[in-house]
């Protein structure tokens, strides 16, 4: 009678032992819900992660140690709680709080066309004594200059005023404001700076009339010493019967002008110098 009671007790004991000793990875189904295994950020549990991972400096045998009792794996942060399935669940949970993206804005170009000003801010969440983070006040505003209504003079002036805040390759003006304590204030300050830059660049000051050849951003061939030299050379070669306009409209002169403008604006390279050489040879008729 006693034996019959003990046997089921032994079975129950074995069953619970089995539950405790055998790792969860063995008992997992392949189509299980992973978000239930790692619902939040947790450290790496080798018995709960069914992956044959190895990490660390190779042992004497020549292989990295396996995951059982591997401190390296526990130390590092993992994103097992942020699998695509988990993210999907988060999105579904957030959906009631969001509005739909406008269907007309389906490409990047359309977005920049209708909303050229791009404002970037960062929000910080951390667990600590204080909620506040001083880096959250920084506001970055990016505007492409092509979207602003600027004529030639205004464009050159705004680039000169902005100095290194303007990027030539992407044609963007970037304003970073962090002088005020609040994000709202910094945003207003950035908008104010943009307005002021725009209006100032359209104004023409009295002293801007004195802009000399050295202040020009790009090399201009018209009225340059180079043009004078070429005209003189041609005048001496052909005599003064032809007018300056006719001399300048010749194809050799145009080719020379292109070569010189490229050389002055983009610097001297082997290619540019070769081109210049050909142009000069044509000018000299050799």
């Amino acid at each position, binding site marked *: 009678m006693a034996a019959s009671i003990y046997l089921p007790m032994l079975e129950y004991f074995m069953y619970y032992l089995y539950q405790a000793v055998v790792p969860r990875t063995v008992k997992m189904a392949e189509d299980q819900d992973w978000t239930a295994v790692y619902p939040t950020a947790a450290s790496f549990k080798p018995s709960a992660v069914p992956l044959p991972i190895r990490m660390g400096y190779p042992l004497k045998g020549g292989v990295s140690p396996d995951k059982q009792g591997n401190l390296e794996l526990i130390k590092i942060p993992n994103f097992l709680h942020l699998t695509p399935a988990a993210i999907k669940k988060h999105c579904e949970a957030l959906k009631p709080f969001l509005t739909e993206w406008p269907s007309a804005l389906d490409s990047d170009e359309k977005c920049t066309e209708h909303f050229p000003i791009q404002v970037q801010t960062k929000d910080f969440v951390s667990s600590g004594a204080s909620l506040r983070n001083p880096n959250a006040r920084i506001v970055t505003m990016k505007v492409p200059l092509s979207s602003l209504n600027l004529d030639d003079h205004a464009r050159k002036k705004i680039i000169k005023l902005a100095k290194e805040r303007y990027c030539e390759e992407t044609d963007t003006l970037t304003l970073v404001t962090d002088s005020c304590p609040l994000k709202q204030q910094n945003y207003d300050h950035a908008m104010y700076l943009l307005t002021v830059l725009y209006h100032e660049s359209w104004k023409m000051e009295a002293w801007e009339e004195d802009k000399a050849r050295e202040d020009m951003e790009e090399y201009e061939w018209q009225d340059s*010493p*180079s043009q004078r*030299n*070429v005209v*003189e*050379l041609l005048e*001496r*070669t052909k005599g003064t019967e032809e007018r300056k306009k006719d001399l300048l409209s010749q194809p050799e002169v145009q080719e*020379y002008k292109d070569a*010189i403008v490229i*050389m002055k604006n983009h610097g*001297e390279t*082997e290619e540019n*110098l070769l081109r*210049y*050489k050909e142009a*000069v*040879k044509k*000018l*000299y*008729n*050799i």
Partner: protein
Amino acid sequence: MNLPKLCSRLLPTVAPKLRHRRIQTTGHQLEGVAPELSFSEPNLVSVFRTSEEDPALHSETHLGQYYEIPPGHVQQLFPHGLPRRFQLQIKTFNEACVMVRPPSLELISCLKRADYSKPAQRYVLYGHCGTGKTMSLCHVLHYCYNQGWLILHVPNAHLWVKNCTDHVESSYNPSRYDQPKQAMEWLKNFKITNDHFLSKLKTTRRYVWTKREATEEGQPLGELVDQGLNRLKNSSDVVGALLRELKLQAAGGTFKLAVAVDGVNALWGKTVLRKMNREMCEPEELTLIYNLRKMMKNDWCGGAILTALSRTDALFKPLSAYRPSELLGEEGFDKMEPFVPLQTTSYNEKEFESCYLYYLDRNWLQHSHSLSEEGKKELVFLSNRNPSVLEQLCSFI
């Protein structure tokens, strides 16, 4: 060793006149040459040497080959024009051999095709240090000399903007400074090169030097030059007057004028000479530079302006600068353009091979390892095929 006979065996295509001239002028000098010419391999010699001594007849077939400048020409044409190391090499090898390379061939072909009734054309040789700018210029000058041009060669314009302690205020124009020693040196060498012209050309106006001394109109230019050589005080002004005369008379068509300036970036750079009030001189305040700048303008015809840049002697320029606008500066570039830029580069494989064989032939490479393939590869690696570096390396071996 009977060199003329050897030459006739190896180079049967040499014209008799040329051979005759070779014997006449080189006989006494080449006696000391040991029998290095490897007549057991005549083909090898013709790989790196050519018998064509007239640069006008050099063509693409001669690229990479050495040709010899006759010693008589060397003494007359280049009293001061050759690089110092090359002069040492001439003394050691007893011959002046120059390699025929693309930039100089291109320049010579441009000179052949140019129209000399039009304003003078400007050519600028540029390239990294030691790639052969001065040597190419000398090759082209040899061509001009053979064609009978008047050579106005300033071997290094940088000599006039530095290392000069005895510059004085000019008597002609008090805001300028004379350099009597440099001017006299240059006049002496100019006379050696162009003696035969100086008796034919006449002055076009009267030059008054002092109350008692003057050079009248119609006197041969030789007298003008002698005035400069005899009177140290007036030598810089004589140089100015001479340049002016030559510029005026080149248009006449009786002779062609080759203005060759090495280190032309000195004309528009900075100087290190101090004025009386302890400030630095500007280049245009030096008489010699001022007059040379006037020659660089293309308002004269009947010749060509051949120039080469130089980074080695340049003052206050970064080490990596070698391109025209970097070395000439903005002002220099504006004044020199339009010019034909010609680039000199390090040796290519064929030229390096040629140079190596030449040094072997001259018994210059003494080390046994240099004769092997590996030795040659080492030389290529160490010098990166740069001509001057290779030359300096080989002088150690």
